[in-house]
């Protein structure tokens, strides 16, 4: 059984007031997510990631196609008791405290009264909010709200967790914490389906990724395979700014910071580059074959990428 299985799931909205015109949001999507894996759903803003999540959560209805979650139809209350969901930019009832909010959600998920307090304490500990559990959410920072959002998604100990852009708006420490938490959940055997447009996050924690653009699935791949491939390029690190220009003449891409230089060039030029460095008496620190990154895969799949499409390859972390 798959954790998530969609079959030609499609969504077209009708926009406009009088003369409604169709706006395709998700082209027929057929996708399977295995149990126990961390699945990254990647795509630039407006690619259809949130639409997919809303379809799976039963918040919007598909134009055609179908989907099953944990072997059950979308909307089945038994299935919903076993999933957790964190929407993008979550906002919660700000008149409640973190403890009250989690109690409310636990009640809605059918957690028995005698279990609730313990579960709430565990969830608050996990997201490091135990000290502020009596503070109203209106006094919380964005990062704290995101953590409350994760706590509410796991309060009922679900098997499958959907996270829509869980790292957006978080500082580097917050992102790290969320990543660690996702890893912890994976270690417990949970399935995680998360959408993001920050590739470095996906590369770090995902088992598999799917790339979506303009409502269309462009490809699905195993992250380890994608990033294992050699690109036929080598990276030199050395000290000696004088040699940088000589390598540039060989066709290398050079990044120099004072005396410290990084240069990338085709593998075939490796010997010529070493000779050049010797000639200029540069101090060679390392030569490393460059591996493919998720960003390469991602950009390769976004064949029709337009410059105005805003996604954060800059944050790809290399």
């Amino acid at each position: 059984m798959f954790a998530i299985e969609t079959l030609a799931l499609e969504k077209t909205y009708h926009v406009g007031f009088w003369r409604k015109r169709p706006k395709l949001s998700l082209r027929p999507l057929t996708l399977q997510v295995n149990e126990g894996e961390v699945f990254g759903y990647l795509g630039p803003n407006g690619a259809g990631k949130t639409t997919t999540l809303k379809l799976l959560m039963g918040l919007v209805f598909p134009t055609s196609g179908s989907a099953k979650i944990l072997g059950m139809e979308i909307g089945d209350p038994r299935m919903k008791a076993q999933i957790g969901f964190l929407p993008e930019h979550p906002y919660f009832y700000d008149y409640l405290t973190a403890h009250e909010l989690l109690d409310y959600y636990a009640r809605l998920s059918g957690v028995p009264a005698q279990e609730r307090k313990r579960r709430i304490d565990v969830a608050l500990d996990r997201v490091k909010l135990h000290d502020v559990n009596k503070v109203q959410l209106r006094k919380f920072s964005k990062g704290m709200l995101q953590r409350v959002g994760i706590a509410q998604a796991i309060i009922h100990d679900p098997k499958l967790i959907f996270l829509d852009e869980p790292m957006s708006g978080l500082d580097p420490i917050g992102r790290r914490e969320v990543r660690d938490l996702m890893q912890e959940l994976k270690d417990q055997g949970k399935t995680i389906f998360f959408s993001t447009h920050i590739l470095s996050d996906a590369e770090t924690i995902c088992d598999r990724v799917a790339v979506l653009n303009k409502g269309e699935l462009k490809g699905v791949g195993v992250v380890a395979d994608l990033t294992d491939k050699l690109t036929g390029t080598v990276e030199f690190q050395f000290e000696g700014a004088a040699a940088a220009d000589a390598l540039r003449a060989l066709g290398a891409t050079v990044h120099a910071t004072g005396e410290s230089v990084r240069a990338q060039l085709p593998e075939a030029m490796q010997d010529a580059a070493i000779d050049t460095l010797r000639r200029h008496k540069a101090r060679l620190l390392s030569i490393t074959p460059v591996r493919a990154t998720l960003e390469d895969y991602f950009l390769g799949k976004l064949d029709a990428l337009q410059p105005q499409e805003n996604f954060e390859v800059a944050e790809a972390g290399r």
Partner: protein
Amino acid sequence: MKRVSAIASNTFREAVRDRVLYNLILFAVLIVASALLFGQISIGIEKIILINLGLSAVSIFGLVIAIFIGIQLVSKEIEKRTLYTVLARPVRRWEFIVGKFFGLAGTLVVNTFFMAIGFFGALLYLAHKFERADASLLAALYFIILQFVILIALALLFSSFSTPLLSAVFTFALFVIGTFAQDLREFAAMTSGATKYLATGFAYIVPNFASLNVISSVAHGQPVATDLIVYNTLYALVYAATALSAAVIIFENRNLK
């Protein structure tokens, strides 16, 4: 049922924490000032004026709360996306609507209860004692609560497909028209042909707030017939249930973009 009560109690808590019950302070000031002022004049009608003013104030304060919170019950949850995390749980959409309805209805019952205490206190100050006829004031207060029940259901119905502003306009317009429901029915009876059918249909579709308003008659010491209490109770429950069912049907099929 547990989920409905969880949603209802959260709605009640929201109203309390958002200081909705602060209207009680304004009401208290108004009723105390009125009692003191009318206590100065003694021309035999001060009690009638106080009852009219007190019950009308209970009605108007509650009306404002019913409409302005009622129209936001659903739209606010959609706008702030809190609804997403609720409906991603084993909560059916009808449970959400019904929970919201009971939450606000409960808020208004509590609000009216405290207003009633203030009102009877002012009445006791002015008249020094309660009379047997004053029992009909309880019936008038009960009818006011029935009006709120209908108004909340209507506000929920309109907000299930319309914007908050339009929902407020529609609900308030129906309240005003409904206040004249009796006149509309009499007018419909005087017409003929197709107009008669249309006018009669319209007169019976709008909520009959006229028969739920007995403020003036109880102020003059007239009793409220038991039949009317039974009829009004059934009418309000059926009307609210119908409006609520329509809201549920619309909401069940709505895409929450």
